[in-house]
């Protein structure tokens, strides 16, 4: 019974029986070797600049990783899968994008070098890079199908993949494009991260992931065929946003040498290209959250009174702030163990919603098993002195 319950969720990336896992691992190993060699060569330009690049990018990426990871309010993605998405973007997608650099040559051969220099970055890179990052997300889905439930999951994996790509690309830019010296790295960090760190690959690949989540979702009763046009539109928007960012238009940054307050023009200049897409993504995330809340309500409403969740628990569960407050209250009144147990009960009740939305009948064995598991957790919680009083709403 426990095996039935566990098999439905919280899978790790290490699924040796899935062919997609070995394809993913092979591309990742190739990319890691290729990029470690390339990054090592850049280190020879300036070891201090190289080290500073990584320190600055860790400072930038760490809070962003947490922000992305905690975007999905109801269901945390498995850590190993989230890490795999990041690593695909950092190593596999960047290495494959380097290999695909020949498409710029094709463009130059078919047009002129001048045209390729001017328009190549906005014509080839967006299509190729979004495809290569998206291919990793599709492989991830094929490895752990149960962990990509809806658009929000797709966004989380996509944004992490895009962030991985951006981090490695930034190191290359700091070292090769900004000279690699500590002062050059700081200038690059200001232009590429401080002024524009919220735009770029995180948004583009987040949108690609959202589209993949929309296609594979099991929470939307609309036939897949009818969801495809919207998914294609979202991917097209990501590619167009990337193309606009790379295009040699709307460049309003001040001329060098830049002094004093003129540096403040960089964020303004880059916001003109990046802010519209960021605002679109924020609105889309808001809508995706509302969609998740509606799904949770619909999935658990029928479960109230069947043992897995009570009406009071559902009222708390559907509002993340109330969930956290309930855990804090439980910890204060019943101790740390009681707080942890309530948090676990809440996670299992969300899993109950996922199981309920996947099975056809209300007496499906895995659904019954999940209800019983929630009931047993509640019983264990009630047995802790002080916990029962803390569990009362209000």
């Amino acid at each position, binding site marked *: 019974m426990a095996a039935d319950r566990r098999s439905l969720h919280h899978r790790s990336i290490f699924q040796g029986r899935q062919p*997609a896992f070995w394809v993913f691992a092979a591309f990742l190993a190739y990319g890691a070797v290729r990029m470690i060699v390339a990054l090592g060569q850049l280190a020879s330009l300036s070891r201090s600049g190289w080290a500073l690049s990584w320190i600055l990018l860790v400072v930038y990426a760490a809070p962003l990783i947490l922000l992305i990871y905690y975007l999905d309010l109801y269901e945390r993605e498995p850590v190993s899968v989230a890490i795999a998405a990041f690593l695909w973007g950092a190593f596999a997608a960047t290495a494959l994008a380097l290999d695909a650099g020949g498409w710029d040559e*094709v463009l*130059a051969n078919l047009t002129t*070098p001048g045209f390729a*220099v001017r328009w*190549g970055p906005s014509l080839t890179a967006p299509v190729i890079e979004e495809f290569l990052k998206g291919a990793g997300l599709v492989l991830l889905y094929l490895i752990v199908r149960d962990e990509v439930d809806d658009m929000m999951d797709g966004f989380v994996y996509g944004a992490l993949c895009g962030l991985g790509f951006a981090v490695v690309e930034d190191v290359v830019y700091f070292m090769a494009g900004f000279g690699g010296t500590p002062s050059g790295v700081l200038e690059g960090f200001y232009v590429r991260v401080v002024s524009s760190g919220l735009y770029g690959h995180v948004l583009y690949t987040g949108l690609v992931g959202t589209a993949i989540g929309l296609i594979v979702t099991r929470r939307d009763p609309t036939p897949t065929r009818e969801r495809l046009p919207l998914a294609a539109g979202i991917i097209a928007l990501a590619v167009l946003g990337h193309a606009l960012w790379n295009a040699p238009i709307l460049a309003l*940054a001040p001329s060098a040498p830049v002094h004093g307050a003129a540096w403040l023009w960089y964020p303004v200049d880059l916001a003109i290209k990046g802010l519209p897409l960021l605002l679109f993504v924020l609105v889309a995330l808001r809508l995706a959250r509302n969609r998740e809340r509606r799904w949770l309500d619909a999935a658990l409403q029928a479960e109230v009174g069947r043992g897995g969740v009570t009406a009071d628990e559902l009222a708390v569960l559907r509002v993340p702030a109330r969930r956290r407050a309930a855990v804090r209250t439980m910890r204060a009144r019943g101790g740390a163990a009681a707080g942890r147990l309530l948090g676990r009960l809440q996670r299992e009740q969300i899993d109950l919603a996922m199981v309920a939305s996947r099975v056809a009948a209300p007496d499906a064995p895995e659904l019954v098993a999940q209800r019983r598991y929630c009931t047993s957790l509640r019983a264990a919680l009630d047995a802790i002195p002080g916990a029962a009083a803390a569990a009362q709403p209000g």
Partner: protein
Amino acid sequence: MPVVLVTVLVVVVAGGARSVADATSTEAGAVTMGAVRVQPQPGWQQDGPVTPTVARLHKGPVVLEISVAGPVPGGPILLATLYRQQRLEPAFSQFATTSPESALLRNGAAAVRFTYVGISADGVSLEGLVVAAETADTSVVFDARAPSGVLAGALDDIREMVEGATI
């Protein structure tokens, strides 16, 4: 089936680029400008006519411009400075360089090199590498430039052409 399809598409997009680029390019022979002779690396093509003083090679969006002149009294450091002031700075709306470094090319010529980043007058963000070299009777400037982020992938080719040039 989906795994096979994704794998094939990734291999075609990443690995096929080289084959298509090679199929659409024409091999360039050695380029001679006066006393300077440069052997293009595989995949590099001539861009426009070769004159006794200027030749342009390109591989995709990466361009190597070679300018040949007589000796400059101040040596390669002055040659590099003049090139920066007279050729590069007027061509960019934004421009920054690293400090020039002295070097000795494999062919024995004394040289100075620096890298630069800039935004061209038509808004393209570029990065470049300049090597200014001089012998007793000839000076030559190699200026390799590419859109930001692209030059690093061509550095080996550029180094080979510059170091292997007969001056």
